[in-house]
């Protein structure tokens, strides 16, 4: 196990005091340390939002790209370097709203990545508008009489798509969250963890208390049973399950490109001379 201080997860942040992002960062650093990964062995891809600032607040390789676009750049690393641990991390708005199309298609690709969604059921950075997971009764400066759409249940969506690993956790239970991250790392394929992360500044409904009162740890649930997983995934009310909801071993994105074998394309070293046969084909 590496020393968790190596990730410098105590850096100064622009997060509000009491924000759920703090325990999330701690759980992440704890998990990485227990997984014995050095900062240079991890690459984190984020979008834009409060959550998406994570690579500035923890020391790992980082691609802090565009709002909604945290997933697409991560695929290249799966092609370039199979050894690298890849984490995609962003907010609920970034992952499920602006980036909705990418999550859909990357569940289909099943790249070996960990996708951590800080689900605070609100747009934090832009100061409190509804996100795709906001509850209908949420009132905001835009949603003045409540949200004009039903909330997305991302876990149900992902299980419905048979994403190869779907979990839910909550920053209210750091130990649980740490274990979920470690499980996601162990899983070969796309691993989504939707993480309840209270936004103390803008979401006055989904508070620490709101989550703590509702979440319960799954026991005796067989995550490989899709029908059972679907049922659990639909539970979202007075009781909300946390834990691994669905898991299925299936071919990853790389597995579907058999000629790559265990080659890291980043090591591909070609000279024009080696490629001249391509020209001859047009003669």
């Amino acid at each position, binding site marked *: 196990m590496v020393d968790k201080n190596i990730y410098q997860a105590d850096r100064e942040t*622009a997060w509000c005091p009491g924000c759920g992002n703090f325990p999330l960062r701690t759980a992440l650093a704890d998990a990485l340390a227990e997984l014995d990964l*050095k*900062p*240079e*062995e991890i*690459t984190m*891809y984020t979008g*834009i939002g409060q959550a998406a*600032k994570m*690579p*500035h607040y923890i*020391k*790992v*390789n*980082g*691609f*802090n*790209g*565009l709002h909604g*676009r945290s997933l*697409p*750049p*991560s*695929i*290249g*690393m799966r*092609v*370039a*370097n199979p*050894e*690298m641990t890849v984490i995609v991390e962003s907010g609920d708005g970034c992952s499920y709203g602006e980036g909705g*199309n*990418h999550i*859909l*298609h990357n569940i289909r690709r099943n790249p070996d990545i960990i996708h951590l969604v800080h689900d605070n059921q609100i747009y934090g950075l832009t100061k409190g508008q509804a996100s795709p997971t906001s509850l209908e009764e949420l009132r905001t400066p835009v949603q003045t009489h409540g949200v004009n759409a039903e909330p997305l249940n991302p876990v149900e969506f992902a299980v419905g798509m048979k994403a190869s690993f779907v979990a839910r956790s909550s920053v209210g239970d750091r130990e649980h969250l740490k274990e979920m991250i470690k499980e996601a790392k162990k899983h070969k394929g796309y691993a989504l963890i939707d993480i309840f992360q209270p936004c103390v500044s803008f979401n006055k409904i989904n508070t620490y208390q709101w989550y703590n009162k509702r979440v319960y740890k799954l026991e005796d649930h067989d995550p490989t049973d899709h029908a059972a997983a679907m049922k659990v995934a639909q539970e979202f009310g007075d009781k909300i399950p946390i834990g691994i909801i669905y898991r299925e071993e299936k071919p990853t994105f790389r597995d579907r*490109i058999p*000629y*790559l074998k265990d*080659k890291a*394309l*980043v090591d*591909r070293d*070609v*000279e*024009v*001379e080696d*490629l*001249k046969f*391509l*020209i001859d084909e*047009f*003669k």
Partner: protein
Amino acid sequence: MDFNIVIAGEAGQGLKTVEAMLTKTFSRHGYYLFSTKDYMSRVRGGHNFMQIRISDEKVEGPDEGIDLLLALNEESVEIHNSEMNEDGTILSEVESDKDEMVYIDAKGLAKEVNPRAVNTVFVGAAFKIMGLPTDQAEEAVKEHFAKKESVVDDNLELLKQGYQAVDQLYNLKDLGEKEDRMVIDGNSAVGLGALLGGLSYYTAYPMSPSTGILHYVASKQEELGIVVEQSEDEIASINMALGGTYAGMRSMTGTSGGGLALMAEGVGLAGITETPIVIADVQRPGPATGLPTRTGQGDLLFAVNIAQDEFPLMVLAPKDQEDAVYQTFRAMNLADKYQIPVIILSDQFIGDGSKTIPVIDTSDMKIERHLVDPAEVEGEYKRYKFTEDGISPRAYPGQLKDNIVLLDSDEHDEYAHIVEDAETRDKMVAKRNKKMEKLAAEDLLEPEYTGPESPEYILVGWGSTAGPLREGRKILADEFEIGHLAFNDVWPLPTETLEELASTEAKLVFVENNAGAQFDRLVRSETGIKADYNILKDDGRPFSGQEIYRRFKEEVSK
């Protein structure tokens, strides 16, 4: 000697097969050729045609009059009748006693052998009419159907029957195969340039007329062990490609105007994160869906101004299929050298058209990655280290021991951490802009000037109009002292040659495949120099040399 063949019919009739066989055969007979496609955005029906112009000299663009029309349906006869040259010939299944009409019962002949190979009857007949033997055509048939061996014999038989069914009318000669030439379409040329440049990861979403690049590089992926991934949309295309570069691979994407519009924010991301990327935009007329299968040069100002605010960017336009190979290769090196996005403005005219070109000469082609030498990194790595020329040593994750590589789309400091202070912002903007200065000083291609020393007129063009302009100038040169200035690099704009020429008495005639004289506007805003005349065309079709001649007489010299 110049001979122009048009193959016309409806989508789904197999025009491409006919063209492929004719093209191969003419090449083997030692002819230079230039072929263009005029097709509709549909899979069946409509009217499509392909033009193959052959000559014993280099050909640079399409021709207007038709010498031999292969009309695969009756409608094609009516449509192209008025374009026939005086001693032109129409080969069709239409019975007629007109002099120029040659009848062939292609379907009848094919019915006895293989009804699906009906087009091969036309091919055989065409070679007889032109006076060429069928030996090379037979080889072309064998190669073309190599994967469907069962039909080779049927096609050879129908080739022979077509040949026997008509009389010889022209006297084309076998010029002997030339080893130093090749035939390539512009989309494959862009793909080839990229592959020679060490492309390892290509991500794109299909869009006419750029799909040819995607198909070509995908056809090589297994052999080369590289990855070509069809993205879920063009926003993903560019963000995926940028992730590929970040991970340490040469990466690229390609699209047409609509897709480029979706990529806009991603190009800015490449700019501020200083991530090298090459983007091929194979232009078609717009806006929105526009004319999906036709040509145009309407994306110039959009490409140059592609994203909000300012960042170093290069835009270049290949002049033809040969140039497309070299320019794409060059674009990959320059993107890496300056850590910038480079947009290649090709178009449907180049992309779908094929041309005989000298075999690509690789002797000056060298892949230059410009990655940091890990031995030179001391202490904590700064991705955006301030340097004299603005270029910071670039590393990829995992390359440096005990060091991480961080990129950021927010304004950032040398370590890539988010900052908002005015001082760092100023320094970072200046750092990025310095790269443009170096690029302009060291790597910009001045436009190529052809013509007399003190011309009355100069035809100014950029990208794909180069070929038609060369031919147009040749015709005009009999009557005028006239030169031609052909631009490759359009952004940053090379100004030296232009300013020199503009200081003479010569009148500048800007010739462009768009309605708004975009290059004229760009030149004007950068140099104050403006066109004396504009010859513009935005109907989705390429210029021909004759058309340039005609329009010059009508609109310029009057």
